[in-house]
């Protein structure tokens, strides 16, 4: 049983890392632009497809394919930010509706470009199996966890230690005051969107080879990532990381005692319980409602 728990904790950490990629990306956009971008799951999926395209059609090197996917998604994100979100900047409700519309648009665009069948993203090196005692994991599992840890650390350092990171935090706190002290708020929006796109691209490109690429592959990570944000506390980067990982581990370990089809019920019951005790989430800061 201990072995099974160990296996599931590692599986949970892997899936949780994927949720972290989605949660962080959504969290950044929410923090700065105050919009829940529901298209983030679809963009995550697009990241996987872009990496696959570059890997199979051009380079054949996984690391470079991920980098190319990041660049491609940043470009897509720039177009979306300028054509969809920027014109609707003063209307939060319409931005949310537009992001829902984007989901339909992107998913069906992928069906048109790549067809409805799931694509295999085979990378021989990361398909190799690592044995930990009797348990066996693919290299891809460990790669996902490792890259996630790296990205989280880099993002944390960027936000805490750099001038631009400070500017992002300032805009997140109070856009008007940030503007008054000379921060280019529009630029902050654009860079934040780009970082969020890069995280989506990395997440999609990492998950693709483990499973399959298909138009709906971002739907589940989106919901779980969002749940991770709620669990960790809206507005807290550390909260999004811990929340995402916790959800991955809770849902993986719970399947050892409760039927797998109740997995989501277990996860969301845990979230409800946490929110009942700490409405601001695990790491959220309680703030007074602004007038």
């Amino acid at each position, binding site marked *: 049983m201990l072995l099974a728990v160990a*296996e599931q904790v590692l599986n949970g950490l892997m899936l949780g890392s994927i949720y972290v990629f989605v949660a962080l990306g959504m969290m950044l956009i929410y923090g700065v632009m105050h919009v829940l971008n529901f298209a983030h799951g679809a963009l995550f999926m697009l990241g996987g497809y872009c990496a696959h395209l570059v890997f199979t059609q051009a380079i054949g090197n996984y690391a470079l394919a991920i980098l190319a996917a990041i660049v491609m998604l940043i470009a897509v994100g720039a177009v979306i930010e300028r054509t969809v979100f920027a014109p609707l900047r003063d209307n939060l409700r319409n931005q949310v509706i537009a992001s829902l519309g984007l989901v339909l648009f992107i998913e069906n665009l992928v069906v048109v470009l790549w067809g409805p069948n799931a694509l295999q993203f085979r990378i021989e090196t990361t398909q190799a199996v690592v044995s930990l005692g009797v348990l066996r994991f693919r290299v891809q599992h460990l790669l996902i966890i490792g890259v996630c840890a790296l990205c989280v650390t880099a993002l944390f350092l960027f936000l805490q230690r750099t001038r631009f990171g400070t500017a992002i935090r300032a805009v997140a706190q109070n856009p008007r005051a940030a503007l008054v002290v000379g921060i280019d708020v529009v630029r902050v929006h654009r860079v934040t969107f780009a970082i969020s796109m890069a995280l989506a691209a990395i997440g999609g490109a990492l998950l693709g080879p483990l499973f*399959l690429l298909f138009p709906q592959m971002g739907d589940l990570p989106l919901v779980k990532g969002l749940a991770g944000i709620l669990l960790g506390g809206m507005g807290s980067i550390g909260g999004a990381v811990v929340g995402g990982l916790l959800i991955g581990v809770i849902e993986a370990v719970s399947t050892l005692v409760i039927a797998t089809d109740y997995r989501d019920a277990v996860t969301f019951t845990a979230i409800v319980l946490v929110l009942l005790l700490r409405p601001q989430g695990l790491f959220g800061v309680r703030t007074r409602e602004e007038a």
Partner: protein
Amino acid sequence: MTKIVRRAALSVLAVGAALAGFTPIAAAQDRVTIGVLTALSGPLAAPGRFQMNGINLAVEDANAQGGVEIGGRRYQVEIKVYDTRGNPAEGASAMQRLTTVDRVPVVIGELSSGVAAAVAPIAADNEVPFILTVPTGPNLTKANNRWLFRVNAHNDQLSQALADFISRQGWQPLAYIAWNNDAGRGGVQSMSRLLPQGWRIGYTGFFNVGEVDFSAHVTNIRNAGARAVMLFMDEEPGSLAIAQIKAAGLDVQLIGTLAMGSDRFLRRLDAQRLNGMVQYNAFPPNAAVPRIQGFSQRYRAKFNEEAHGFAAQSYDGLMVALAALRAAGSATDARRVREALTRIDHEGVTGRLRFDAEGQASPPVYVTQWCADGRRRILYPADVVADCGAG
């Protein structure tokens, strides 16, 4: 002068427009339209493509032979396709439209048992026959709906052959991984009912459509000490489940559905991982049966891939609809088409198709097994048993 020229030009345009307007109406008299429900987008878009390939091939074959003769007149066959996206509400709305706005004499298709269950009562309310070609939920044809017919075998029929085989092999404890929907849950219920009493089931795990991580199931199957795993799902999750079972080093006999007995499936994995796996099959594309070989060749020529069971069943669905229209002698009277369907006896590419009192056909079901070299053999039924390369 200019005015006259303009008037003349306008008159020519008007006559042209009138002619253009008349032509389709004249042509429409020679066309019979069959309604099609399928999933062209959403999570079932991939099997939907096979379904549409079969239907399109049937339309092409019928029209290549000069169309269908109904009541002494020849009609070109047309289809009106609606995308249900695998969603019962969209399916219901599409069926409503087909039967009340498009007023087709018969509707065929659909993939999901859940959508079919929502849609079938609408066909009955509007008195239009509905021929299922893929959904396998056994209850669909047991709902006392006189307007519903099914050309493909349902879960109980499919599982029977496999249950006999599993019990002969003594594969217990048996584990299941199944879709958390009518097809998956229905499959598990059927198999458990058809296996000998007291057959040990080590683990039953369900997953939602779209889920791709089977690690929890793999751990539980290892814990349960299962000897064999039955996978009730289609190609995509099937390939993922097998890849994850093998990667985790689980030594179990794999048992699959008809989606897992094709070259396409082999390309998703490899012969080494599939070696020894058995699956039921409604259409082994390489079987030495003339009707199967004929369809397989035509399908490959048109779509450049191995024929799929869903395509063969859907091809038969459309051909059965045409046979019923022919027998009914009417391209519009849905009531007569239904009467004709109850008496139909059609030699399809999947086998001989006749409907019982519940509207259910009983096409042959096969059990095939993967060989070490990536070919397949047929293990069941006894009269077509053949070695590697025939399945």
